[in-house]
């Protein structure tokens, strides 16, 4: 695989091209772009014939090892690649470690192993096991084994442990990678850890920049996949900016997770090339349709507003206020700590305990309570008799053929088609958002210089 930077621009972001995939010689993808989140090897709710109604593009799939792990026994025994096994051989595969939309259970660390939670429970993955699995799965891109179990509240000790385990594993995986006839033709992506500690980030980035890998994944920024969109950009800005300074500019940079679109724009401006579809998927999962307007002139200006098409001007201002007030995130970011003894951050353990007790209740009502300034909830009874599409001019199948009243009915009656229609619209909207970003970059390259 090859990544080629087309423009280097420090004001708007960068345009690049991914191609020369060994297995897919005609594949070409422009960046900034999206990896398509999969669970169990499928884009949630979408069969291949429906994906074709969404797009005829060859999609790059993000395949987290934890949610496909249960199938690795069959993949190995059948001696097929992960692409062949999941029935999507013409798509590109990027094998990662943790599902970006779920919560990483914290506090399960062992020296030199990564802990993942599969369908069958806790699995300890050693670096040797990881490379055996990659050898069998044969993904087009993959990351080396990493311990990304850090977030804004992690202690220095935890951060250092995560960085050490990850860097040591990388060293091992890199050697295996270059000596394996199968893997050396695939793209190895190096995960950069360091939590929210600038010094550790710098050390990791510098160390990994010595190896000729295709790209880097900035990992270890969050633990709770379902609330990434609440993380204010300013809390990650310095970390990303600082990390990127120490890796070669011409290499691919990837960040995973359901960051809010406004943060995505800022990350693109910092020079990140690839993201994933966690955000549209999580919105759909919660009955929400994306309705933000990205069709704005100065997409990368400091005070750009991706307004919600359903909100009046006033309401959008209220959202803006709330977005700026997201410091409460800090205290909530560790909702899923299961084991306080192992949790090195004792300061917040009381809050953690409380959160755990109400977790189940929250899960039951969370679907109706999930709010995002970028979407509307189609559970809302006000759409009961709204016979208009989600977005009037949207060209997706859902908006061309179905109304909000119908999607509302499907959600209320718990019919599976509701999720299918929301996924189609949300993915379409998000892909269009990225298409618009690329066009915008192309148009404004000159101006930004």
């Amino acid at each position, binding site marked *: 695989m090859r990544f080629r930077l087309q423009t280097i621009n420090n004001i708007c972001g960068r345009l690049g091209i991914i191609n020369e995939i060994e297995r897919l010689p005609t594949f070409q993808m422009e960046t900034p772009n999206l990896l398509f989140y999969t*669970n*169990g*090897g*499928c*884009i*949630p*709710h*979408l*069969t*291949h*014939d*429906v994906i074709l*109604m969404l797009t005829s593009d060859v999609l790059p799939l993000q395949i987290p090892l934890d949610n496909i792990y*249960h*199938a690795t*026994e*069959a993949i190995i*025994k*059948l001696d*097929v690649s992960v692409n062949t*096994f*999941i*029935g999507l051989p013409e798509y590109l595969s990027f094998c990662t470690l943790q599902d970006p939309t779920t919560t990483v259970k914290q506090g399960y660390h062992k020296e030199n192993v990564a802990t993942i939670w599969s*369908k069958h429970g806790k699995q300890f993955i050693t670096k040797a096991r990881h490379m055996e699995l990659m050898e069998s799965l044969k993904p087009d891109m993959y990351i080396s084994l990493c311990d990304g179990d850090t977030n804004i509240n992690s202690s220095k000790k935890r951060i250092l442990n995560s960085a050490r385990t990850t860097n040591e594993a990388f060293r091992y995986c890199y050697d295996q990678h270059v000596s394996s006839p199968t893997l050396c033709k695939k793209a190895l992506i190096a995960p950069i850890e360091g939590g929210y500690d600038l010094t550790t980030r710098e050390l990791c980035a510098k160390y990994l920049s010595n190896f000729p890998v295709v790209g880097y994944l900035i990992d270890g920024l969050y633990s709770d996949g379902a609330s990434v969109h609440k993380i204010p950009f300013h809390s990650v800005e310095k970390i990303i900016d600082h990390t990127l300074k120490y890796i070669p500019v011409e290499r691919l940079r990837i960040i995973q997770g359901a960051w809010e679109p406004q943060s995505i724009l800022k990350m693109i401006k910092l020079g990140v090339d690839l993201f994933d579809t966690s955000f549209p998927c999580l919105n759909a999962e919660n009955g929400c349709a994306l309705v933000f307007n990205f069709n704005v002139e100065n997409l990368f200006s400091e005070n750009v507003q991706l307004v919600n098409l359903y909100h009046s001007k006033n309401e959008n201002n209220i959202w803006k206020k709330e977005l700026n007030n997201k410091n409460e995130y800090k205290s909530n970011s560790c909702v899923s700590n299961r084991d306080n003894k192992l949790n090195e951050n004792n300061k917040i353990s009381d809050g953690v305990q409380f959160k755990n007790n109400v977790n189940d209740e929250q899960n039951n009502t969370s679907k109706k309570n999930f709010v995002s300034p970028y979407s509307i909830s189609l559970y809302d009874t006000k759409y*009961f*008799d709204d*016979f208009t599409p989600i977005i009037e001019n949207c060209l997706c*199948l859902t908006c061309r*053929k*179905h*109304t909000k*009243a*119908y999607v509302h*009915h*499907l959600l*209320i*009656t718990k*019919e*599976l*088609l509701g*999720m*299918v229609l929301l996924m189609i619209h949300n993915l379409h909207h998000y892909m269009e958002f990225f298409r618009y970003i690329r066009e915008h970059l192309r148009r404004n390259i000159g101006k930004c210089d």
Partner: protein
Amino acid sequence: MTQLTKSSLKFTLISECNVSNARTGVMNLTHYNVETPVFMPVGTQGTLKGILPDQLEQIDCQIILANAYHLGVRPGPDLLKKAGGLHKFMNWNRALLTDSGGFQMVSLLKLAKITEKGVKFKSPYGADDCMLTPEESIRIQNAIGADIIMQLDDVIATNITGSRVEESTFRTSRWLDRCLVAHERPHDQAIFPIVQGAIDERLRLISTQLHMEKDVKGYALGGLSGGESKNIFWKMVLLSSKILPKEKPRYVMGVGFALDIVICCALGIDMFDCVFPTRTARFGCALIPSGQINLKLNKYKFDFQPIDNECKCSTCKRYTRAYLHSIIPMQAVACHLLTIHNLYFQISLMRSIRESIKRNMFPQFVKEFISKVYSHRPVSKWVTEALKAVNINLEVV
């Protein structure tokens, strides 16, 4: 404008089997011309289990069934009227049939009380008592706007005998009269009466004859998808189909196992519906010519074949048993893939039946089909007898 006399249903026979009672034809309905014999998948709440209308068209599904009871509760007849009918609400441009709701009343709601006025039941979404009368059922079905609507019938459990059966039979006829009076859209919605009479030959005969006196476009046979013995089932079907007018379609309600469909076609039935293919998909099961396979079973873990090597559906073209096994039941996609395959299986079966009748090969088709189903065991007595009754002799090769 071209067809001022356009009727809600025009049935044209294309071919009849020269051995058995099987026939193939076309039903011209308001929204689509449906080829018979036809299987109608059940889309209870205005959606077919996660499948897009476009996908249904791709597998050549021509008519689906919706349920007046469920749709009457959610989203309700007023909204459906506002939407311009269910076709527009769900964006399905082919034919629809609605069930009257009587069956759901009795099977879903244990507390339903049936009186001459109608079915009284406790609303599942509120504390109030509700009453579904024949008039109300038709009002809801008129709002839904399906091409074919069903009368409200007095449904009884299959194991009931005695005077209650007689009451149900005659009450169903009285309710038919009320439905016909209440029906406001006879020009674009065809109403079918439902033959009742449980497993009492005398009552079934009376019920059939009473319905034949009415001005209707087709007939349904009800009360035959319960637990009654197959030996009785086929006799009840034949009893009615023998005397029903040839030029009108006949529909056996709730029948959907491939074997039962093939036998009923031989007995002269044109329409079928059943939740089975979609329901069994939700439980991880796929239909194959010899029956069904449960993909949850561990033996499919390393099975890298499609569900059915012969099948040309989008699932079998791309996905394997091993992959399906790995995503059942975690991923909704597994359910969609199995639903598509099962519907394709069912729809292909109907196409084969129609083709064989057209080519005058239906008896051969039946024999081949039976030999596949019974490849490892002796053919059931009821199958042999039912086919013999319509001149298909399985013993003679």
